[in-house]
């Protein structure tokens, strides 16, 4: 297979999108059941309407704020517990099963509990995002720190770096950074899902709220128009982190 230049790849992707949308448009017009499959033109009109009315911007702002707060809390918790289970075998064996269980439990299954404990407020929504995102961060911190190259610790110490905290920052964390970024990338994807779940199943709000409320009144074109920015947000976040990750790798 011929390798493509960056530009050629982009061009092919654009052609692909155009083809896909044209087929969709034609099929939807022929099918003529906008409730089931609204034509692309209707979706774009709906999207334009959402932008003009300011509804989308408000919702997006709310969602991004929730996402950022949730991710930051998840990063802090992930670092603390990740460091603890990396440094203590006892802590690892005691805590690891719970984190593993949390990792495989669908976040949506935890929503009723969050609702009972924290109500519909912002705390509850943040908690849902944290529950979705924390484990990949925690595990990547733990494995990144555990695999820290012992000889580099010796190097740093022999050249005068003193104490566990300076060693953590000059060597351990830096050496673990590519692994940490991979964990963060995974976490960001899950956080977007957690965000949508929180906004749909707790108090309605943000992009998730838009989707749910337009869905409830069968405005499928507006539902699609709201899903689009949500996907874009996720893609931008994940690929942005991926880009930083590639820069930090050394081989």
């Amino acid at each position, binding site marked *: 297979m011929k390798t493509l230049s960056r530009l050629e790849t982009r061009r092919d992707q654009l052609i692909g999108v155009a083809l896909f949308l044209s087929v969709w448009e034609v099929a939807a017009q022929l099918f003529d059941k906008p409730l089931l499959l609204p034509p692309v033109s209707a979706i774009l009109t709906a999207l334009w309407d959402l932008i003009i009315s300011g509804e989308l911007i408000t919702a997006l702002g709310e969602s991004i704020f929730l996402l950022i707060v949730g991710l930051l809390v998840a990063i802090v918790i992930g670092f603390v517990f990740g460091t603890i289970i990396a440094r203590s075998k006892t802590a690892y064996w005691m805590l690891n099963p719970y984190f593993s269980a949390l990792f495989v439990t669908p976040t949506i299954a935890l929503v009723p509990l969050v609702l009972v404990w924290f109500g519909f407020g912002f705390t509850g929504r943040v908690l849902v995002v944290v529950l979705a995102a924390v484990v990949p961060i925690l595990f990547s911190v733990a494995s990144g720190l555990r695999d820290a190259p012992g000889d580099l610790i010796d190097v740093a110490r*022999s*050249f*005068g770096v003193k104490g566990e905290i300076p060693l953590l920052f000059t060597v351990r964390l830096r050496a673990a950074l590519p692994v940490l970024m991979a964990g963060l990338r995974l976490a960001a994807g899950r956080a977007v899902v957690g965000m949508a779940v929180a906004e749909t199943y707790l108090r309605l709000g943000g992009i998730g709220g838009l989707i749910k409320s337009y869905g409830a009144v069968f405005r499928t074109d507006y539902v699609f128009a709201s899903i689009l920015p949500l996907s874009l947000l996720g893609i931008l976040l994940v690929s942005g982190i991926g880009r930083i990750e590639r820069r930090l790798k*050394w*081989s």
Partner: protein
Amino acid sequence: MENTHITNSSTGTSAIELSGIRKTFTLSEDKNAQQVLALDGIDLSINQGEFLTIIGPSGCGKTTLLRIMASLILPDEGRVIVEGEAVSEPDIKRAMVFQTFGLFPWKTVLDNVVFPLIVRKYPAQQTREIAIQHIKQVGLEKFQNAYPHQLSGGMQQRVGLARALSTGADILLMDEPFGAIDAQTRELMQEELMRICQEEQKTVVFITHDLNEAVMLADRVLLMSRGPGQVREIISVNLPRPRTEYDVRAHQEFVRVRGHLWRELRNDLIEQRTEEMV
């Protein structure tokens, strides 16, 4: 040249003095696990400007001894005295060169060499100049901005050497530094190391498992014996400097010292095998 070493040593204090060094390790994390005696009563005095090589069967505690000299670990008993002062932490007088090069893969050559100076809080402009000077000294000026993974093993160890030299330490502690380097590059680097150390009057402690290397480089060779690690013998090598591998190999003194060391080492290895069979 040989004479300057001897004069140095007879006048000043020792570069490193070890007395009664004893070190045990616990094999696993289990508190009741078996204790292994790694070093048992090592007494040793290393002269200033001396090139001391350490050789011995694997597991004899060579690396442990070097790590104690570097204050990376502390002995259970005994004292380490560097240039007249008892030490318990790494300091600017000693610099280490590592078997696996120990370069930070995320730093460029220049940043790796600058690292010890930054840790010691030298002024920024000065650190750069010092680092570049030592990168030139090992012939890597064209690779200042390269990353370690872009360099061959020999080049990486040159960076390791430049880093140790840039600290200005009088004492270089080298743990099988050429062990992971191909044979031809190794010979070149041995010559370069001898030249640099002679020019700069460095004291070198150099661990190796290669007998030729041990004799070729050394003013004195320390032969260690296995479990518990002890000094079995210290032999002076009376070969003129500067030395090159080509000249030295055929020298009578080289053949004598090498032959003697090999017989001793061989006995130790055979004893070990017999014990294992019993």
